[in-house]
């Protein structure tokens, strides 16, 4: 597990859930409206994804705003797949993987941006807020999978480690991820 994930992905985010066969326990019962909450959370993420994307590439400066197609194309390798026509359980599992992937990546991006653009406070704030919402989505999905579907474990995958890359590559990977995020969250939101 990358160090950034350890440092910034708190409260077990991104950690693999116990497998279905394992004991699935939560601290308390999920609220009956957890699915509604998930939808609201996805809507919340979806409504802010584009603004976050714009805010990000704007904060990176040239050449990003003028070369979005080249620099910010949503070409993210190993991004978890999502099948919008799947069952709720399958969608929840895929959603879990996606949010876990995005959450870990946002953590890395936030860390990089605080170093690369320390004055972009609005961007920092928005990145943190988005990451907080993703934590909430993971909690709700986890609770739903565990309480309803008794899924105790979900295998997750994480993005590439950017710690050894140069600044431009970091910015580019971040921009590509946010572009992907804007693209995927819309689809996911629509599917729930």
């Amino acid at each position, binding site marked *: 597990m990358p160090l950034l994930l350890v440092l910034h992905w708190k409260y077990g985010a991104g950690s693999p859930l116990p497998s279905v066969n394992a004991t699935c326990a939560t601290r*308390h019962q999920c*609220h009956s409206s*957890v699915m509604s909450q998930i939808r*609201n959370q996805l809507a*919340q993420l979806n409504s802010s994804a584009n603004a976050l994307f714009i805010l990000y590439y704007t904060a990176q400066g040239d050449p990003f705003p003028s070369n979005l197609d080249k620099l910010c194309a949503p070409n993210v390798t190993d991004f978890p797949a999502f099948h919008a026509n799947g069952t709720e359980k399958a969608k929840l599992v895929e959603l879990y993987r996606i949010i876990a992937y995005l959450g870990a990546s946002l953590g890395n991006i936030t860390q990089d941006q605080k170093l690369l653009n320390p004055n972009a406070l609005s961007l920092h704030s928005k990145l*943190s807020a988005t990451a907080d919402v993703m934590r909430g989505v993971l909690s709700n999905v986890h609770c739903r999978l565990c309480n309803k579907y008794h899924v105790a474990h979900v295998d997750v995958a994480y993005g590439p480690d950017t710690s050894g890359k140069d600044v431009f590559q970091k910015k580019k990977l971040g921009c590509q991820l946010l572009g992907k995020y804007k693209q995927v969250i819309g689809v996911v939101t629509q599917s729930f």
Partner: protein
Amino acid sequence: MLSLQIWLVQALVVFLTTESMGELVDTCGVISPESPVIRSGSNFTAFCVLKEKCMSIYEVNASHIIWKANRVLIPEEQYTVINTTTSSVTFTNKSLSNVQLICNILAFGQIEMNVYGVKMRVGFPPEKPKNLSCIVNEGKKMMCQWDPGRETHLETNFTLKSEWATEKFPDCKAKPDTPTSCTVAFSPVYFVNVEVWVEAQNALGKVTSNHINFDPIDKVKPNPPHNLSVSNSEELSSILKLTWINPRIMNVIRLKYDIHYKTKDASAWSQIPSEDTATTRTSFTVQDLKPFTEYVFRIRCMKEDGKGFWSDWSEDASGITYEARPSKAPSFWYKITSHTQGSRSVQLIWKPLPPFEANGKILDYEVTLTRWKSRSQNYTVNDTDLTVNLTNDRYIATLAARNLVSKSDASILTIPAFDFQATHPVTDLKAYPKDNMLWVEWTPPSKAVRKYIVEWCVLSDTSPCIPDWQQESSTIRRTYLRGKLVESKCYLITVTPVYGDGPGSPESTKAYLKQAAPSKGPTVRTKKVGKNEAVLEWDQLPVDVQNGFIRNYTIFYKTSNGNETAVNVDPSHTEYTLSSLTSDTLYMVRMTAYTDEGGKDGPEFTFTTPKFAQGEIEAIVVPVCLAFLLTTLLGVLFCFNKRDLIKKHIWPNVPDPSKSHIAQWSPHTPPRHNFNSKDQIYSDGTFTDVSVVEIEANDKKSFPEDLKSLDLFKKEKISTEGHSSGIGGSSCMSSSRPSISSSDENESAQNTSSTVQYSTVVHSGYRHQVPSVQVFSRSESTQPLLDSEERPEDLQLVDNVESGDGILPRQQYFKQNCSQPKTSPDISHFERSNPVSSGNEEDCLRLKQQQISDRISQSCGSEQMKMFQEVSATDAFGSETEGQVERFETVGIEATVDEGMPKSYLPQTVRQGGYMPQ
């Protein structure tokens, strides 16, 4: 090696120090438990265990232990000696107070020593926190608060715990200064339920509140909408459109709104119906507003489903609706300011329309004046009055106000002809204050009224009545004065009905918006003060100081040390009579004027009632004086009538023989002295009683010796003739002459009037009393009568007189002077009251001895006058001095005239027992 030695030294020092400190802090025993925390109301037992070493040193055991709580000895009943080393003390039902418990021993049986002390803390375990609630202020962290329950009196920690279903959040420990709330450290995550509870813990226990589970989005208090703005519409003067920017939370939740509005000067807000603002929006149009009116708006929002909290109010925003046509015609009235032959100066006045009727900014007023069957005259006026000169005819005036949109309806006013007689006033006009307004109420007249004009002004003694006015419609029966009224002022209110043909008769009344006590009391004074009553008067208070309707006066009066008496007086009076007053008493009086709101004292006035009523003194004094005068007069008259009787009974004449004198009549003795001046005679004034006895010798036969004397008189007649001054002379000389003269003149006939001086007896009254009746008596002295002895004829003459009292007719020999001027002529008086006459005689003798050689030829009468003068100086009857002097004056003149006469018959006084040489 060296380092090893240094290390050993250091180790030794540390060891010794530790040992010594251990000795120093070593105690004789300990108390268990060391830090007791006791639940209030429970029992508690503490144990004090002594150390063996100490016990042997101080020769004590557990029975020598005594316990103290807060330095107060605990009763031994609470002690228990468990064994030789341990003693316990038990507290039952321990109350709420911290106690310092000390275990002591009595060393050597008597010296008290502290062994160990602990502090007992008493309190309660925490109660279960109640009413836990949380709020998420948008953009801030979640804050929860609770009710901690009763005071524990112990240090109690409150911890807010929160968790998701899948993970737990860090605890939020409440700060000691705010133990009832805590703000979590993490940002809220919406749409994830969180479970929250509070854990309270102190030394006596731990307790947890109920868990609450909620979605933070349902506890949100959004930020208020901002950038609220208001815009109007030219098409509709009754609407305003609000626009605003929603808080950011709108991206997450749907909102509903609460919109308030009011006119600018209003205090209460109106609310837009909630169903009209129940959905998320960024603008709203408010309808049914008044034209050209400024409105103020504010807005707030909350989650659409009503969960959570209303945001704070946005900042106020205001806007003005567009103008509309004036909704009402202006109030219109007129005054005739002057009138001359055939024309009138009329001032048309009107009131500006209030904003809610003007519906815009009034640009000007249009006035038309129409005389009967004449063309109208139009005026455009920016002000609110117009003065025109009219004839005495009837006019119709109209007035309309114009704003940006249009002009109002016209107010029509009939200005009647000059000779118009107003009638039909309103009736039952009343004015009264209510709700801090001055209301006017009336009964309309029977005639159809077009409108009413209500005028009012402040009545004052110092300033003129400047009227204000307002117009009321014909349906109004009651209204309030819409002017700036002040309290404590008297308002004269006039209501005039206005008919189609002109104004009716005005009707007036007075009223106060709010009465107060008079600012000055009446000054009372006395109009008239009597013995038992006083009439007080005062002036009516000026209206400026009345501050209300004077309901009554109260007069307070009292004496300087008496109780105060109060009298109420009707306010219409200006004087009052205080009766039943005490005479000759100082009264203090003051007067208070009362309105409905209180009274005010006037200055104190004092007056004193007189001792006597008017005319009372005169009524007493005059009769008394008259009675006194009458009594005096009667007394005088009585005394006068009974004077003899009174004299006889009160101070009868008692002759004093020892002071008797014998006056020697020595006609042959020439005068020895002359008076040098007449003044000497009168100087002393008084004249002693000298009488000359004239005996009328009617019967010469029976008095043959008298003839001898008569002869002797005759010898002297030539020299005395022509010097007679008639009977009544007051001197011995003058008194003798007429006797001589008359006797001489009547001698040829049966001259019974010829007199013979017989003798003079001078005596003084008894005990200085003046004898009322003096009897010319014969001296019974055994002393030789000198001349009489030498001339026995003289003595004989005297005897004859005595014996002839009953024979001789009454004759006045010498008019009695002194106090009895009206002495009866039949009684001869010879009064001599001065006993010092002897001294005068001595003076006379001394003078004679000195002057005898060179004044041998001078008359003795002069000398005797001088003697009389000296005697009279000590005469007690001073009141008669003047009369006597007058008589002396006569004598003096004659004495002067007779100064050259060597032969005069002068009476001489002779000291009793003495002899006066002739």
